């Protein structure tokens, strides 16, 4: 069991508990907890099973179950990305394990990299999105809840499967895909016509950072990835749910809460996103410093979109106040002192 996967699983569990405790209406909460619990159990299975093959089959089952539970999009649309991801990954594994020329292992790396992107729903394998779809059957389930666990398992298992050359190619693929998602996601967060779509793109932008971090294949890269995933699961997801709960209300523009939320979403200090960016810059500087420059410039793209999302958040009421305070406090603590998180993941 990769320790970082276990830790990300705990993040997902905490996010689910936060949602369960602080969600306002009773009936969606029950449904969300049941469906989230099943997803969490699936994630736990993915983490704990002994081989990549079984993890892949569990993933197929989880994706299949997610497609089965219903939603706004047609069944076939919900099922396709998961099947594509599993097929690509399985094909990647076949190529990586087969005896043959070195290029075969590189094709294996392509399959595994593309499979990872397809599973989470990142460019160019982005999932079809409907703004009014419930969270559990929507692409957000992959982007924010299942994806972080799956990604850490994928990367840890992939490292065991690939040769050094193919592992380097896998890293390059992740960096390429990461940068594509980073730029596209952050710009689209800013420019998308609907706020729901903007939220989706903001997750994609964060995933861009995470993919770059995974792709850098140095320890600081893995640390950065862990913090980005922490930020996705325990900052962006709860705040997105808060926005959803209050989507009908008129947002109170430019109150402190809007800007603090925007700061947390943008990865400003002292929140976890800044520490993640710091570690990412550190990793990129170790590998190839111009990459760090490009990443630093890309990181500035977060601001306009985050301001937009922050301004869309209505003033929290009742339990939501506690939820927002907990989320922001936890993120600030993780941003200022991430060592416990990193140590727990043995990074």
């Amino acid at each position: 069991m990769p320790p970082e996967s276990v830790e990300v699983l705990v993040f997902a569990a905490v996010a689910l508990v936060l949602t369960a405790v602080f969600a306002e209406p009773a009936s969606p909460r029950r449904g969300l907890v049941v469906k989230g619990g099943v997803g969490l159990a699936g994630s736990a299975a993915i983490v704990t099973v002994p081989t990549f093959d079984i993890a892949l089959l569990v993933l197929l089952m989880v994706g299949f179950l997610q497609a089965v539970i219903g939603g706004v999009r047609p069944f076939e649309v919900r099922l396709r990305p998961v099947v594509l991801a599993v097929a690509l990954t399985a094909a990647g594994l076949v190529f990586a394990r087969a005896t043959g020329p070195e290029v075969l292992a590189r094709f294996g790396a392509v399959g595994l990299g593309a499979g990872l992107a397809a599973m989470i729903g990142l460019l160019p394998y982005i999932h079809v999105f409907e703004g009014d779809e419930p969270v559990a059957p929507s692409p957000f389930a992959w982007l924010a809840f299942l994806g972080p666990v799956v990604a850490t398992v994928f990367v840890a298992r992939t490292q065991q499967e690939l040769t050094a050359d193919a592992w380097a190619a896998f890293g390059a693929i992740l960096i390429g895909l990461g940068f594509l998602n980073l730029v596209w996601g952050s710009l689209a967060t800013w420019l998308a016509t609907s706020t729901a779509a903007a939220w989706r793109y903001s997750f994609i932008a964060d995933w861009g950072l995470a993919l770059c971090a995974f792709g850098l294949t140095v320890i600081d890269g893995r640390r950065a990835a862990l913090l980005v995933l922490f930020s996705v699961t325990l900052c962006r997801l709860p705040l997105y749910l808060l926005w959803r709960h209050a989507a009908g209300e008129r947002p109170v523009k430019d109150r402190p809460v809007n800007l603090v939320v925007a700061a947390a979403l943008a990865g400003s200090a002292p929140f976890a996103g800044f520490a993640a960016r710091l570690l990412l810059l550190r990793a990129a500087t170790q590998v190839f410093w111009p990459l760090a420059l490009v990443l630093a410039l890309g990181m500035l793209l977060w601001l306009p979109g985050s301001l937009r999302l922050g301004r869309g958040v209505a003033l929290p009421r009742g339990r939501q106040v506690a939820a927002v305070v907990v989320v922001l406090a936890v993120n600030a603590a993780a941003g200022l002192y991430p060592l416990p998180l990193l140590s727990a993941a043995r990074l």
Partner: protein
Amino acid sequence: MLEASAGFIAWLGASLVVVADGRRGLALGVATSALGMAGIAWQAAGPAAALALAAGGALAAAGRLRSGAPGWRIAPPGSTPRIVLCIGAALVASWVGLVVTSGGGAGLRFAAVVALVLAPARILWSDDPDVQLSAVAVLALGAGAASAMGPSTAQPWSYVAAGLVAAAAGWLPVRPEVRDAA
């Protein structure tokens, strides 16, 4: 010889899933594919693995008989592209399994590539949930069979998992689109 036959049967089953639209045709495809995969698995991982895949495939095929368009509907009019796809996949899988890669287990590689190409292709190009679920079963069986190329420590659990996923694909109900779920 047994491995080659099993590979061929696996391809035949996967191809049936690609070219069939009726519940019987799909069930036959899934069952045939499972039989081929079980043969492959027997050679690579022993009878327990083969049994797991065969049982999963049989359950999936039985479940498929419950729903979907009635009849066989194998290669209905307009199926030429699908047939071409099946033949193309067989050629590519043969090339990969025999020429590009080396070492034993060519039949396993052939069957895995066939399943991993044909099943997703069927899912991507079809809007019928019953057809898609049949293809999911084939994909699960193919991925399970391919696990023989990986570390042997987990056998036969990967085959059991593949069988379970395939069976689930045959039996789990599909809910229509809803807008009031959580």
